[in-house]
């Protein structure tokens, strides 16, 4: 069984003081899979990832990472996992090259100099090799952290919001790279708040208040949600309130020159929309964002 899953944990729990931050989390990430980890701020994503790589000891639960026990074999796990922290945690008083060199030495990389050089070139850092990390802009810091966690060719990447603050082009390059690595059999667990990134994952898990609310492929999650969506082609600002009051409508999002309306009962919404004179609308595909907002509103109605 261990041979098949990169991550296989069940019942992981963690409390800080009296606050239960992660509650019975079970996850299975297959080899070569890109697994998206989503959830509102403070839902326990970072805490979960830290438990996976041995930075925090779970209060309850057990499982394996790359076949090593998360409780007792964290030294082995650390050798083969690349962890990218949410907050920039490299040395600001060291240059890009010095930081990467430090990492390469810690992992005892052969051909250290070439590895560091190649790592920098992959992420476009070579021009700034000798700039102090503390003087980099946010996005470049993020790239440095990415380069560092991939330097030792880990078998599993744990990425905590790796592309926060990174520009679209670099974000796309990064995701292309992630897919290329997954193609080579590397597994990736990545937390993100971006829906377009969620859509590029093979599978997703959504947690809130430490509880796993839903998991599955993006398509499956959309199907499970049972939401129907419509695009209303109108940009009259006054319309939003009227749309919200229609029966069955749960979400109304203004997007430039159209409104996206969604709810569980598609037929009811359609009736309501048709009742408004002169309104141009058509059925649209439900996005992940609607699904997650729906999930979040459900738990807010019924807190754990």
């Amino acid at each position, binding site marked *: 069984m261990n041979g098949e899953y990169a991550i296989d944990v069940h019942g992981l729990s963690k409390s800080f003081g009296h606050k239960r931050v992660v509650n019975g989390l079970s996850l299975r990430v297959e080899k070569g899979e890109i697994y998206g980890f989503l959830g509102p701020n403070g839902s326990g994503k970072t805490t979960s990832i830290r438990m996976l790589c041995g930075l925090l000891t779970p209060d309850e639960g057990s499982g394996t990472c790359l076949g090593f026990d998360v409780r007792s074999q964290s030294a082995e796990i650390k050798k083969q996992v690349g*962890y990218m922290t949410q907050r920039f945690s490299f040395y600001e008083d060291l240059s890009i090259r*010095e930081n990467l060199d430090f990492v390469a030495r*810690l992992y005892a990389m052969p051909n250290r100099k070439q590895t560091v050089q190649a790592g920098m070139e992959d992420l476009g850092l070579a021009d700034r090799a000798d700039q102090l990390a503390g003087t980099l802009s946010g996005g470049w810091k993020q790239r440095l952290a990415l380069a560092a966690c991939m330097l030792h060719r880990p078998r599993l990447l744990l990425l905590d919001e790796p592309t926060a603050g990174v520009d679209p082009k670099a974000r796309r390059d990064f995701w292309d790279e992630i897919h290329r690595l997954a193609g080579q059999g590397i597994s990736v667990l990545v937390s993100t708040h971006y829906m377009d990134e969620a859509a590029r994952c093979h599978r997703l898990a959504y947690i809130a208040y430490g509880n796993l609310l839903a998991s599955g492929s993006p398509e499956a999650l959309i199907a499970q949600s049972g939401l129907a969506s419509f695009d209303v082609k109108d940009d009259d600002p006054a319309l939003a309130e009227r749309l919200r009051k229609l029966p069955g409508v749960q979400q109304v999002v203004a997007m430039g020159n159209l409104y996206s309306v969604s709810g569980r009962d598609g037929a009811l919404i359609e009736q309501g929309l048709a009742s408004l004179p002169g309104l141009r609308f058509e059925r649209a595909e439900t996005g992940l964002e609607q699904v997650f907002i729906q999930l979040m509103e459900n738990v807010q109605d019924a807190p754990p």
Partner: protein
Amino acid sequence: MKFPLAWNRLWAIVLKEFVQMRRDRITFAMMVGIPVMQLILFGFAINTDPKRLPTVVFDASPSAYTRSLVASLENSGYYDVLPPPETVAEAREAMAIGEVQFIVSIPPDFSRQLVRGEKPALLLEADASDPAATGNAISALANLNQSALQHDLKGPLARLGTAPPPFEIRIQRNYNPEGITQYNIVPGLMGTILTMTMIMMTGMAMTRELERGTLENLLAFPVHPLEVMIGKILPYIIVGYIQVTVILVAAYFLFDVPIAGSLPLLLACVLVFLAANLTVGMMFSTIAKSQLQAMQMTFFFFLPSMLLSGFMFPFRGMPHWAQIIGEGLPLTHFLRIVRGIMLKGNGWAETWPNVWPLLVFMGVVMLIGFKRYRKTLD
């Protein structure tokens, strides 16, 4: 221990610390600047040859001879003879509170014995708690012995005026039986400076990782706690040696402090002492939550080290309980080692009794630090 220490990882930490140290100019300047500044303050700015020290004379055999003697005391410039109180006991009280530095007692039959050539003795009680203050005055007295009465001893007594001296001076150093000379300051400074800077630097080196958030990354790397600890200690040993070099060169060339014993032995003992202090800093950094706390803990350790080690006050002058605490401090043993080697020319055999306590201390502290070292963020 699951996996053995790896040199490449240890080296990675050492290199990183060096680069960071080099970038942190102020701290680096401080580490070299502190010894220089302290030496200058202690060595030059603070007058180690004070004149006109308050003195009282109890003359139980007043005569022309004793009057000349007192006059020459004053003329030497070191003694300021004040009107004496009623009793010697009162004078001693005045000495206890620091109003009187010397008490000269001339015994009843001093003058008679002097004339008979019986080499009488007078007693000089000195408040030697600050040896630098009294040292020169005492040695000036020795010369007086020769010259003070030259003038009075005429005719048949003239033979008494030539060597050997006509009377004897018994010196009683109160509060400081060891009779420490000013040479003590520089060796002592070496120990205190090293204690302060070494503990503070390592204490801050680890908490800095916590404070700046780099600890999360460091813990996620496959690096053994001992590798991190040793890797962070090694660079500071080199810094410590730089400080020692500065101090020794200044001691030797500026203050003419002799190095009677073996320099390699001294440097070897310095290594043990440095390591002991660095493990204390390391241990503190596993407890402190911020660099500020690490600094506060350093001072918490530094003050008793300075007060109870024999640097500020003579060790044997302290109450028993204070001596017991003092025995537990590395600085106490290091001061004995340094004074022993530099001033007394001690060899390995005399030094060892103060080396092993340092090793024991280091072992215990290292164990505590290792047990407390964060392996997780919990």
